[in-house]
């Protein structure tokens, strides 16, 4: 018997369609716990290998290394699997990163929780079977873990991980000239991007693409300290800001200043004078329809009376009104018409006669971006064209990208209106699969940076500020600390050397912390599993890295000056870099020697090991814990068989609380 007080979610998975009519048979397939575990281990196995591979599915010829896209493409049937995939998708949509680690961590957490639940014998006698008792314990542990993460994890991170992090400086993006070589954090953003693209696109082009991303961000921001707004802008408008072009090598990818409207001119006219070009956006047909559907038009034989107008006169009236619109446009000096819909032949012909360019069928995204950048609004009705509707463009000309001819516009007096400068990315690749893969990675990289540079969680800020005061009281030598942790995390974000450093550091900190709390042990062990799996081909590397990091923590404990932080992160970077999966042995040797010559060659070391964003990792941890607790709350899976041709009454998944129907189980 199941304990109904626990408010378990029960998944009703209908076989053969989304709509369920009635539950004809309900079969009970044992405890879902074991299935969840099995499913998760399957993913785990899979993803260990996926870390270095491209995937290609045939249905739409997709090429990807992104965990989320692979998971989605697998079209998994099992309800638990679908639930996990949903969680992963939500997480990676927000942060753009971490889908593979998500699954690794999820699997190892589930295993740890079940091991712990198994060890803990049935404490209460209310459960009939050992299995039920185990499930209940697991559920309790998951909830405790989540509660612990929400309340105390930020605390642990700020004490045990944050001191070893690097503050990502966005300054290097503003600098027009390359940053000086001796500042070790000068290329933090670049390193962050390189290691991100390395996992998503492979080694060959990661440097090139990350340079392109940096250049895009550098171009997009107008003022020095507005990187988050530039990132937000690129993230929001990415579909309109990139153009995939197939048939060219990837190294042909480049940036174009201004906006590219992905349509060709319906009517084009080469403007030779260099005055600002005036453009107007229309969202409706310029030529008025005389009557719409459902309206009856009465025509007569022609004459003076209204009811005697012939059909010819009506259509002449329609043309006359169109000419008035064009007269108005010419009066305003407009020479470019941008339209969201297809215009009639008369409009195009009149535009050609008036030496105007027309671009038809522009997508909504692009028009809204255009409106945002030009600071104008589309014309609501063709008889009300006001000067506020007129946008000023520096130029409006055709641009040939691949086989397509598009319209390229640049905006006049942009500085006065917006915080950002538009810049389009042309993503080249031999085939559509690649351009798609690169564009996706590009957008995810922007999301990742956005997460890094402004964590939205309120809890982080408050707890960190608490922490700061506590630190001050504990340690009085701490006066030189940069303004505050809170500010650093908020404004610049924090990064850690990639390759398991975060997991090692946090698990160590958790174990220290965990003298009071049992769940933190589970979390610590689960975390440690992630780097273990990443280095599963060479377990020696894992041990090597772990010991290095741990010995490093022991040596460096309680040093908090910013300089030391730089140094510590670099050293950590080295130790992690020495074992990074794809870095060949020669490189790690190189970094070893470099590290010994301290100071000057710090940068060289850092270049070898990538960086991971702390903000992303933190959000990942929370998302996984939430997923675990919701997974373990599932008590029973009911498979329902349905007849298709009758009306539906229930949804695919029903949340249900202590229903009578359950009693038979």
């Amino acid at each position, binding site marked *: 018997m199941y304990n109904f007080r626990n408010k378990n979610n029960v998944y009703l998975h209908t076989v053969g369609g989304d709509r369920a009519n009635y539950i004809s048979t309900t079969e009970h397939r044992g405890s879902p716990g074991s299935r969840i575990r099995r499913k998760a281990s399957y993913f785990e196995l899979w993803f260990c290998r996926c870390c270095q591979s491209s*995937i290609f599915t045939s249905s739409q010829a997709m090429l990807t290394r992104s965990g989320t896209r692979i998971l989605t493409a697998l079209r998994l049937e099992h309800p638990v699997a679908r639930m996990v995939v949903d969680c992963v998708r939500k997480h990676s949509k927000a942060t753009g990163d971490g889908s593979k680690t998500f699954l690794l961590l999820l699997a190892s957490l589930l295993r740890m929780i079940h091991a712990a639940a198994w060890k803990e014998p049935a404490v209460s006698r209310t459960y009939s079977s050992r299995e039920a008792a185990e499930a209940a314990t697991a559920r309790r542990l998951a909830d405790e873990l989540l509660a612990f993460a929400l309340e105390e994890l930020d605390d642990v991170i700020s004490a045990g991980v944050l001191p070893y992090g690097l503050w990502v400086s966005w300054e290097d993006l503003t600098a027009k000239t390359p940053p000086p070589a001796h500042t070790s954090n000068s290329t933090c953003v670049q390193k962050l991007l390189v290691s991100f693209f390395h996992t998503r696109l492979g080694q060959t082009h990661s440097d090139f693409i990350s340079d392109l991303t940096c250049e895009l961000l550098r171009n997009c921001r107008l003022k020095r300290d507005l990187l988050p707004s530039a990132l937000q802008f690129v993230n929001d408008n990415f579909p309109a800001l990139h153009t995939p072009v197939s048939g060219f090598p990837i190294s042909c990818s480049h940036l174009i200043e201004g906006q590219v409207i992905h349509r060709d001119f319906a009517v084009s006219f080469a403007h030779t004078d260099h005055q600002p070009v005036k453009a107007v956006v229309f969202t409706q047909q310029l030529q008025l329809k005389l009557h719409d559907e459902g309206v009856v038009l009465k025509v007569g034989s022609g004459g003076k009376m209204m009811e005697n107008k012939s059909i010819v006169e009506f259509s002449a009236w329609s043309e006359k009104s169109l000419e008035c619109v064009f007269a108005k446009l010419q009066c305003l000096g407009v020479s470019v018409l941008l339209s969201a819909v297809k215009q009639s032949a008369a409009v195009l012909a009149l535009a050609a006669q008036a030496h105007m360019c027309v671009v038809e069928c522009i997508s909504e995204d692009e028009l809204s971006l255009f409106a945002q950048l030009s600071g104008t609004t589309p014309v609501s009705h063709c008889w009300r064209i006001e000067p506020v509707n007129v946008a000023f463009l520096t130029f409006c000309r055709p641009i040939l990208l691949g086989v397509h001819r598009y319209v390229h516009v640049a905006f006049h007096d942009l500085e006065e209106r917006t915080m950002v400068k538009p810049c389009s990315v042309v993503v080249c690749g031999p085939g559509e699969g690649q351009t798609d893969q690169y564009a996706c990675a590009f957008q995810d990289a922007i999301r990742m940076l956005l997460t890094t540079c402004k964590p939205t969680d309120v809890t982080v800020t408050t707890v960190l500020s608490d922490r700061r005061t506590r630190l001050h009281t504990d340690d009085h030598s701490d006066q030189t600390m940069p303004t505050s942790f809170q500010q650093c995390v908020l404004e610049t974000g924090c990064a850690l050397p990639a390759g398991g450093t975060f997991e090692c550091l946090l698990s160590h900190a958790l174990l220290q912390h965990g003298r009071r709390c049992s769940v933190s042990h589970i979390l610590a062990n689960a975390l440690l599993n992630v780097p273990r799996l990443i280095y599963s081909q060479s377990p020696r590397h894992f041990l090597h890295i772990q010991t290095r990091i741990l010995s490093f923590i022991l040596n460096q404990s309680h040093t908090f000056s910013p300089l030391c932080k730089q140094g510590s992160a670099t050293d950590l970077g080295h130790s992690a870099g020495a074992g990074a999966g794809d870095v060949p042995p020669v*490189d790690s040797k190189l970094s070893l020697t470099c590290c010994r010559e301290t100071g000057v060659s710090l940068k060289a070391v850092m270049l070898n090991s990538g960086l991971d964003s702390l903000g992303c990792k933190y959000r990942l941890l929370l998302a996984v814990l939430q997923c675990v607790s919701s997974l373990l709350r599932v008590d029973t899976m009911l498979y329902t068989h349905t007849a298709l041709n009758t009306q539906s009454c229930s949804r695919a998944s029903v949340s249900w609380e202590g229903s009578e129907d359950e009693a038979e189980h």
Partner: protein
Amino acid sequence: MSRLVKKSPSVCTDLPLDNADIYNKLSLLRQLLASCFGPTGRLKQVHNNIGGHVVTTSTSSVLFPAISSSQPLVNLIKTSIHNHVSRFSDCGLFAAGLCLSLIEHAQQSGLAANVSIRINKHLLGLCVSYLQREDCGCKVKLDFCSSQSLITLARSVISSKPACVLTEQEMLHISRLAVQAFLLTLPCNNPGIVMLGKTVSAYVEGHPVLNSAVFPGLLLDVTGDFCLNKEDNLNPSPLSVVVFSTSLAGDLCELGEGLIEVPAGVDSDLQILEQLLELGKQVVTDEVKLFACQKVIHPVLQQYLRSEGVIVIERLGAYLMEPLIQLTGAQPVATLHTSLPAKAYGEVSEISVRQFGSKTLLHLRPSGESAICTMVLCHRNETMLSELKVVCQKTEHVLRLTIRDPAALLGGGCTETHLAAYIRHKSNEVSEPAAVLGCSHSEYHLCMEGFCCSLESVAKALEHSGGNSLIDLTHAHHWTLPADMTKGDIEDSLGFCGCGLVGSSPSRKWTYINTKYTAFSPASLSVDPAVRPRVLDSFTAKLNALQVAVETANLALDVRYIIQDVN
């Protein structure tokens, strides 16, 4: 319920290139495409099982869409190469051959995929930077002062498509026409932004190839009588033209979808027709000689205009509208109720009728400077004509590519062998790349050898009659030795190298391709204006083909899993 089939899970293939089935398919594709390569390439007849058109071709742009595979990896490579061909129109088979050969060599070498990928990328960088250098030994600057090198370039494209079935003389004729058409589309006295003109093609089947011709202006294929008298032909003054872009059939499609209620006794069709005839009257009073419409013209209006001596052309189609507007300088008209503005009229200097077999074409000559020309292509039968059509489009595109980058590469396999020799030499010269790339020296050497062999195997694929491919040890050009020759008279039978720049001489030394030779720096040719290369390849197209081929090969090597949705 019986129609419901349970969804089957996706099929996952681990390490697809290690799979014998996929590997065999790729190698079959390589053999298939290699056998099409070059002027003596073997033709392929493709017909599908649902009764489609039978295609006879050796051109990659026709072949790629025609063949299909159930294997995603094959399709991935196919689409990559096809994308290149559709952008650059040339060197598709070169790219495919190189790409598949690179994959094969990388698999045979047994190196780890990521090592091969890294080294291939490095070698590609070497090739690209060498080809872009000024003193590159296999590049020639195109000279726009004489049409000779352009004709050679055009001829190389045309001769590499044996499915056109052209004799030597016909080939030269078509090459000249292609260059002539290209030159006619370049506007002469237009400062500022230059808009290239357009070559419109007309096709005549059943006529000898040598009857093909290029005309400045536009030839429109129109049926019916034109009321064209002898006097009209000789009329020297500019003739007025009006062009409509809307239908003149009497339908008012712009009115809307609602109902129209017409009282009894009122004929609205007649009212509209009267309106159209009004328009016709104005055209006649304005002394318009040619009345063209993109869509349909009402027969009554047509009849009226013809009776007034106006030439009427209807159903032009959107494709011909643009060149017609450009040629005449007319502005398209789409309003029926207002009087025609004077500036909407265009003009042509002469209208005449040309007869090509059964086809009657109306020839419009521009009154001023215009970059529109028409190419009339004739061939003996439909299959050959359709191939010739494709070839002429490709040639036009290749010629246009030279505007941006006026250079060409030596053809006949010489560029490939030259590049291979250069890479071998460069790799021997410096030993550090292995350290930078993070691989051992032997790994680097193995992969480099695979890369060079792949390049040479493409050159070797030019020979289909069992002959041997050789490489000379000074310039590293490509030579072909016919099958029935013995080693003794090698110098006499070789004659010239593939591109025709190097002649055989007793002092020259050769070695068979794919035999080991000591690396040497391939010497650049001394500039001798008297000797012109006989075969040239487009520089832009080949450079892109090289990059696409290596990137595609790297991509295929990088694929770890194939997940196929089999539902």
